[in-house]
Every structure is written in C-alpha cells, then in structure tokens.
C-alpha cells in the first residue's frame, strides 16, 4: 500500500500521508507558486517538481530527502535557432514544463521532460543537465502540431516501456502519439484509428489531441488515451487505436484525466466532463468511470462523490491509481480518494487551489 501522495496545485505542492485509514496533509512546499507536476522517481527516491512561476518562468526542483529540502536545477533550454511549431516564426523557449518521467530501471540517471512548445528533453546525469531530443523535435510532421488551450503544443505524456527502455511512447497535445523503438533515434507517428473533429481531415495522421496517454504496466503494448475527441485504446503499441468511448449513453467520453491498473491491462479509469464546449461534469454530478473489460463497457462510480452543483474538472495529471487505491483532485480544489478501485470515495479536503497533478509516491 502506498502511503504518500504528491499533489501539485496552483498554490504549491502538498505531500499527503496516509494516517490510519485516512489521509492528511503532511507538508506544503513552494507555497503560492503554481506546481504543474510532481512525481517520485522510484529508482532513486528523488522527488521532482515542475514550477510555473507567473513572472520568472518554468523551473525544476528536486529533493533527495523526501521533500525536507529542495534544490533548484536548471530548467531545460531550447537550443539557439529553435522556433515554435507550427509556423516556426517565434523563437522557442521552455514556456511550460508539463511532465517529468524517469527513464528505465536499467538507466538510473536518465530522465525525460515534456515541455511546451513541444520539445522532449532527456537527461543522462540525473537531471543536472538536459538536451532536446532533436529527432522528435524535427519530425517532418511538426508543422501539424499546434497549441490547444495553450499557445503552443506540449508533450504531456511520456511512457517508457519497463521491459525495454528504448521503447518510448509520447503524447503531444496537439500533435498525436509518437513512438520510438530505438531509444529516440527515430520516431513514428502512431495515430491510426483516432479522429479529430476540429481538423479538415479528422483522420489525419498528425494533428490529433491526446490529452494523456498511458501504457498498461502489465502489458505495455496496451495503450490508453483520453483524447480531446473520446477515449481510445490500442492493443499493439499504438499501431491501431480503437474508440472505446461509452456507446451506451454513459458519461465516459470527453475529459482529460486517465489512470490505468498496473495489474490488469483491461482496467482503466477516466474523469468525464460533458464536452469540449461544456467543460463541466455531466449533469453537474462528479463521477469517475471504470472499465474492467478493455473499454467494452464502463461503470459510473459515484458513491461518496457529490452529485449536484459540481463544476469540478479533473486535469490530465489529476488522477492516479496504485493497487486498489485511487486519488484525484479537481479544478475546484476538492480532493478524493478510494481504496476499493473507485467503488466508493471519500473527500479528504476541500478548498485547495486548482489541482494540476496527483501522483502516488
């Protein structure tokens, strides 16, 4: 059982700890500073946090002592001459650090960072320095990448295959899913089966909008994505995607957040909203949906969640699962956990700032 949570909010990072059967806020860090993402590198025990200072730019912080002390490390920088997709007229700078992801277990000093305006960075010295992965940045399809909700495209998902560290899947929002099988030397867009209702050609290979992409740890060829235009799953490492949005009238469809079961490749959870035009919970009732059969059907899990007058959204990194436990935080500053796979929930705290990310340690 995992006993701590990292919660990135618009007003700082919270570390929550399990206290008997409940959770309490153990400590607060970077108070009043937006914390976009925070994670625990299980290979090294290091905590990482991405900060988005309104004034001073995006910063990276790490802690080697469980959050007792933090050290700022230089944020990744785009090389001179780099310009932003899709028109390549604006000089590229690291405007947002979306995600921090460890490399494989066999490469303990490797770390990946996903940024706006669309650059993937890699470190091979434990985060002391980062280099842009030029092979992806210069992909021929990059003129079809663009910003959605932000000015420029962002890499919001990075999945390293636990069986083969050279097999990496990234999600670019907006751009699509890209996969390398040679450690980043070459990349392939894998978006067949997705559709984008905002594009002239909805089935274009590039220009899709995966809000988040996750691989099932028990079978990393099984990929899931909560896309701008529905929920999709692939059984072959992204070569072919299948729309698994709820076709029976349930709420699972539009949304941002996604979690997958580490033990069962057929189990995942989403946090639905009405649609891109109505970014509110369906019928203003907070719900998490779970599939136990690879997306053939979805259950609405509502027990313990408020069912009226809710305006909470769950952002793309705002939901996480670990064994039978789940946790999510919302844009309205509410925070919920479940210890029975989502069958029932309890509120841990209200009145937080906007929750950007939730990760079990």
């Amino acid at each position, binding site marked *: 059982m995992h006993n701590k949570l990292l919660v990135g909010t618009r007003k700082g990072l919270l570390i929550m700890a399990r206290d008997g059967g409940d959770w309490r806020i153990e400590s607060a860090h970077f108070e009043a500073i937006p914390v976009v993402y925070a994670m625990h590198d299980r290979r090294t025990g290091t905590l990482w946090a991405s900060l988005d*200072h309104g*004034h001073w730019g995006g910063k990276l912080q790490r802690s080697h002592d469980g959050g007792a002390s933090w050290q700022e490390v230089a944020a990744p920088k785009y090389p001179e001459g780099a310009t932003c997709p899709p028109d390549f007229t604006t000089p590229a700078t690291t405007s947002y650090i979306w995600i921090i992801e460890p490399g494989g277990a066999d490469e303990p000093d490797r770390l990946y960072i996903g940024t706006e305006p669309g650059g993937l960075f890699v470190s091979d010295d434990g985060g002391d320095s980062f280099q842009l992965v030029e092979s992806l940045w210069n992909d021929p399809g990059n003129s079809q990448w663009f910003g959605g909700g932000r000015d420029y495209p962002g890499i919001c998902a990075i999945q390293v295959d636990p069986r083969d560290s050279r097999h990496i899947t990234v999600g670019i929002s907006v751009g699509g899913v890209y996969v390398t099988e040679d450690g980043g030397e070459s990349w392939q867009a894998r978006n067949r089966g997705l559709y984008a209702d905002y594009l002239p050609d909805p089935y274009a290979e590039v220009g899709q909008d995966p809000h988040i992409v996750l691989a099932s740890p028990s079978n990393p060829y099984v990929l899931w994505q909560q896309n701008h235009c529905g929920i999709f799953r692939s059984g072959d490492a992204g070569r072919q995607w299948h729309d698994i949005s709820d076709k029976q009238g349930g709420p699972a469809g539009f949304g941002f957040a996604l979690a997958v079961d580490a033990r069962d490749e057929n189990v995942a959870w989403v946090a639905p909203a009405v649609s891109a035009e109505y970014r509110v919970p369906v019928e203003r009732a907070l719900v998490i949906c779970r599939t136990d059969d690879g997306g053939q059907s979805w259950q609405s899990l509502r027990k313990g969640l408020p069912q009226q007058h809710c305006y909470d959204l769950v952002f793309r990194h705002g939901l996480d699962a670990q064994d039978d436990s789940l946790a999510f935080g919302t844009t309205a500053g509410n925070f919920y956990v479940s210890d029975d796979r989502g069958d029932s929930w309890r509120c841990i705290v209200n009145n937080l700032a906007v929750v950007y990310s939730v990760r079990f340690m």
Partner: protein
Amino acid sequence: MAQVKFTPNLRRFFPDLCDCAVEAATVADIIAAVDQRWRGLGDYIIDERGCLRKHVNIFVGDQLLHDKTGLSDSVAADTRVIIVQALSGG
C-alpha cells in the same frame, strides 16, 4: 557604474540578493553581471533567447526598457536600473 535594484520578491529565491553597482554598457551586460554573482538569477529575468520574460519589467532611469528582446538599451554611468515584476492576476 549602474546602480541596480531588484524587486524584493526575488529574495524568496535568492535570499542574499541586494542592491549593487555594476559596470555595464547595456542592460544585457547588467543581467550577465548579476547572474555571475547570483548564479541562476538571469533565468528568472530573461528566457533562454535572452528576451525579457513576459511579466518582468526593467526601468532604466525612469524609462521602461525599450529593447525587450535584445536588452540593448544603453546604460549611462550612475543610471539607476530597477528590475520589477509586472502586475498580474491571482
């Protein structure tokens, strides 16, 4: 020597930050000099292209910085240069 002042808000990240005198011909020179003294401070004021961050302002004397992309504004001796954060929402 230009007389450089900082918004007190930067002291949260650089606790020993203080007003200082810098030998400089341009504002870019000033940023390079203060970054030498307080390592990493430059990244708080300018981005990796050397452009002033969007929500940071610099006064050269009583004038707002003119060249926000190159920081080439010249700095006369004894000019007071103030680095401030722009006002923004909550």
